[in-house]
Structures are given as C-alpha cells and as structure tokens.
C-alpha cells in the first residue's frame, strides 16, 4: 500500500473558474462540491453545467439545489449522499424525476447517513481504507448499501459498522479567504471542508477574498486547509449565492423558497438554467443579472471579533 500524495507547492495557483473546472473536473469523475448550507460554491456548479461535464458521480452529505441543477442538466450518473433536499423548504425535484418508480430514466444512488458520509471522508483523509462507527443497527440502511460492513472490536467483542474510505477525484471548497498558494481560512460553519480537501486527489479552493500570505500567517490557528493540498485557487466574490458566506453575505432564503416552484416544473427549471447558467458567461455576469438589490439585501452587517496575541 502506497498512498502518497504529491504535495502541491507552486507559488501562484490563481486561475479563473473556467480554467479551474476545465482542468480539474473531467467527464466521469467523482466530484465532491462541498458546503453544509454555508459556503456552497454555486459558481463552480454553474461552470460545470456550462462546460457540460458529463457522467459525474456527484458526492456530498447534503446534495442541494446546485446538485439538483447538475442532475437536471443531465450531468449526473450517480449520486452518493445522506440527505437530499431543499433545506428548510422541501424536495429536490430534478432528483425526484430520476429516482422514483414513475421516472423515465433513473440515476444510480448510494446512500448513507450524515455520520456515515463523514466517516467515509475521515477514512479518506487519514490514509485508512475504512472507518468504524456505532450506527445502522436496527435500520435498513446497511441492508440496501452493501458497502456498509462491520467489524468486531478486538477488546470488547462488540460489533461496529464500517464504511469504506471516500477519496474523491476532485473536491471544490469555497472559503472566506485564501492566499494564492491556496492556504485557506474559514469561520462559521465548517461542514466537511477540511476532510474533503485532505481526502481528494485534486482540490479547488474558491475564495471570497484573495489575501497576502502574511494575513494567513498572522493567525495560523484559523487555517483550515493548507495550500500543499490545493491545485487551483479561484477568486469568486459572491460565489456562493443563494448560499452564504459568514461575514460577507447572508443566505438568500427567499430564493430557496422560490426555488420550490421554479424547480417543480421542468419548463420553468429550464428557463432558469437558460437565463442564469447558460445565459451568463461567468459569476460576475450572474451577479449583475441578479440585480442591484441583491447586494443591499444580503450584504452582511459587520460584526468583527477581536484578534488574539501570538507573541512570545
């Protein structure tokens, strides 16, 4: 077993989203587009749709609107997940259209619980082929997923579930700030960003702000992802809308509510994709198209914390 990963130490990894996606996301690859409500890179998802990268195995604990859009665009061969919905609102309608009895065409589904998905990433980010967890007894989850196995504790004899390591081909992680080597700092909800970056073969860091490395080095405990894991850095302000970035802009809850109606009908879904994905060439145009009121409505009110002292 040799699981070495080549550390990535190029001094400037800044590219456009177009370039990053074209280079790192290949047809048929295992894609982990991270975000747990917070810091979901819709910008990356839309660029994947524009580039029509097909046959994806789309992986995340919470495939949400952007995963649903990948499905509606016909790019997803298989979904690996633990909770698929429009958080706080309802269903993912593109997913429903390819996952039910009456579906004309179906995609493959591989299903865990959140803890199971997290455990898969923990294994993948730790160089282990499996991870043990106390879960799934008394449920049908392991029955319908043969990848969930079990192991006996060598001390107590007790049985534990295991899940296999997850090592995505590409992880895309949106962060508040990064330097051009990809050293990335995040605050607020952290989801599985660190584990995804450590587990993936290739990593794209998308940042609200590109900062000088000295800013990162002033507060090293804040760094979640070291640049040695990162292939590409993309500067994409407002890149998460309708998701959010703590300290930058609020979640566009109204969009999530409106989405229920937009997405239920394939025709209005198509209109949305035509206008806001295919109809714009990049994120900048998307934000312009959203109208001037977007920023005033969602821009965060400042609430800065104090720094701490690293002197000695």
């Amino acid at each position: 077993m040799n699981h070495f990963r080549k550390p990535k130490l190029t001094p400037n990894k800044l590219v456009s989203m177009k370039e990053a996606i074209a280079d790192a996301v290949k047809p048929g690859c295992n894609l982990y587009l991270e975000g747990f409500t917070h810091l979901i890179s819709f910008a990356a998802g839309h660029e994947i749709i524009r580039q029509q990268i097909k046959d994806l195995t789309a992986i995340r604990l919470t495939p949400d609107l952007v995963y649903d859009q990948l499905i509606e665009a016909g790019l997803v061969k298989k979904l690996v997940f633990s909770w698929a919905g429009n958080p706080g609102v309802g269903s993912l309608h593109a997913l429903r259209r390819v996952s039910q009895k009456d579906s004309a065409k179906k995609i493959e589904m591989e299903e865990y619980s959140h803890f199971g998905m997290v455990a898969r990433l923990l294994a993948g980010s730790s160089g282990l082929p499996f991870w043990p967890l106390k879960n799934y007894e008394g449920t049908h989850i392991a029955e319908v997923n043969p990848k969930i196995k079990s192991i006996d504790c060598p001390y107590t004899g007790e049985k534990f579930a295991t899940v296999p390591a997850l090592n995505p081909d590409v992880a895309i992680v949106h962060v508040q700030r990064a330097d051009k080597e990809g050293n990335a700092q995040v605050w607020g909800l952290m989801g599985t960003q660190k584990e995804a970056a450590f587990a993936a073969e290739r990593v794209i860091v998308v940042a609200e702000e590109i900062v000088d490395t000295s800013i990162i080095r002033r507060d090293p405990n804040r760094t979640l992802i070291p640049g040695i894991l990162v292939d590409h850095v993309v500067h994409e302000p407002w890149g998460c809308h309708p998701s959010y970035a703590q300290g930058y802009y609020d979640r566009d809850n109204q969009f999530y509510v409106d989405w229920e109606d937009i997405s239920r009908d394939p025709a209005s879904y198509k209109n949305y994709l035509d206008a806001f994905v295919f109809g714009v060439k990049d994120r900048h145009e998307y934000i312009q198209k959203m109208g001037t009121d977007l920023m005033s409505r969602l821009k965060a009110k400042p609430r800065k914390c104090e720094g701490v002292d690293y002197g000695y």
Partner: protein
Amino acid sequence: MATDTANTGAKPLKPSERMAVRASQELKDRQVVFVGIGLPNLACNLARATHAPQLFMIYESGTIGTLPARLPVSIGDPTLVTDSLAIVSQADIFQGYLQGGLIEVGFLGGAQVDKYGNINTTVIGDYDNPKIRLPGSGGACEIATHSQQVLIMMRMSPKSFVAKCDFVTSPGSRMDSTKASPQLGRTRTEMKLPGGGPTKAITDLGVLEMIDGEFTLTEIYEGVTVEQVKQNCGWELKVASSLKTIPNPSTETLDILRNKIDPENLYL
C-alpha cells in the same frame, strides 16, 4: 380537525402551536438538546423563553450553545453561528457529541413511524423503485442511535402512523418483524444501541408514550377524542387507563410563541 376550533384569545389555536407548546414542556432547564429546524426549534426556543432559560442547544450544522437572534430558516442559518459558544466540524458533531454520548435529548420526525418508534425518512414504497423518494437519513439515524432520549414530533394520520414502515431509517425501541423473520426483531438492548430511543411522540392530537417498548396514548389535547386519535393511527393503538388531558396553552405562552419565536409564521 378538532384543534382548529379550539380558541385562545382572538386567533384559533393551531395544531402546530399545540405541538410546539407541549414539546417545550418536555425540556428541562440545562438539558443538552440536539435541535432540528421547524417545530423542534420552536419548542426549544419557547422552552428557553419560558421555563428553561439555560437550555443548551446544539444544532446538527455544528453550533454549540446556540443563541439564535432570529428564527433559523435552515439548519445552516448564519444566525445559529453568531453568538454561539463554539463551532465544530461535522466530524466532531457526529463522532464527538453524538457518538461520544453528550446529547441528552434529540428530536426526530419523518414520513412514517411505527408503534416501536422506528422512523422512515428514506422512501415511500420499494427502496429500489420508490413511489416517493424522501430526503434520506441526514443525521436522523445517529440521533436515534445515540441520544439519551428521542422526542418525535409528527402529525398523526393513518399514512404517517403506520403498522409497518416501508423503510426504517432511524431505530426505535425494537426492530419489526420481516417476511424473512416473522418474529419480532431485536430490542435496542439486544442490538446494544447506546441511546435510550424514542420516549414520546408529540402529535397534533395528543402524546404517545413508549411503554414497554410500544407507543401508548397517554395524553390528548382539550377537545380531542380517543376515537379521533385511533382513526388517525395505522395500528391498533393502546390507550393508557389514566388518560390525561393537555390543557390549552396560556395566553402568555402563546403570545411568546406567536410574536417572539415565530412572528413571521414560518413554521406555525
């Protein structure tokens, strides 16, 4: 429904309000609660605003000691982050807090629940060819496995309180029988599940309590009849001999719930 006609003050009392108020009464001050969005969130924040000001709220997104300034609209709402005591990764939430045994009360709901408190949030119909594809487990399976006790909040109907779940996503007091094994399945103790499992189901008609491993009707709201409850339950529901009546909430409590906790009527 009967509850539609129950009045407190000017506005009629809604089933969702009764559920939120009754669930809040289950929470003790200084308990550690794993809060879900929707009715559980209303119940927890109502408890904080009334009898349990130090209720310790943890949300699945990783916020510890949460103090939401507005009603969170999703599990990852930024209002959960700002002013919380700590933010932790998903790995820590599931591995450290839940599997680590720190959660005293968890909340669950779903599309189907059976008399053992097994819950289905995965599919209606056959797993491979479902009639309806539901969101899946999320953290529900581990909340049901590891919380010291689980409170279920669901509206009753024969479609939701079922004789048999189409799929068990989250474990209840014991496994049901299957075609292959017509005997009743193993209990939580036999399966060595760490958590205590569901203790109560707070419904829109009354409260079912887990007694000897089976849900039994122990409380009904004012104006609800036992017959109504039974009609909305898909199995032959046991009824406690000493059935309690749940009084309508006080005007003061309702006022807090309606005007402070959910003023925009998002979940009520």
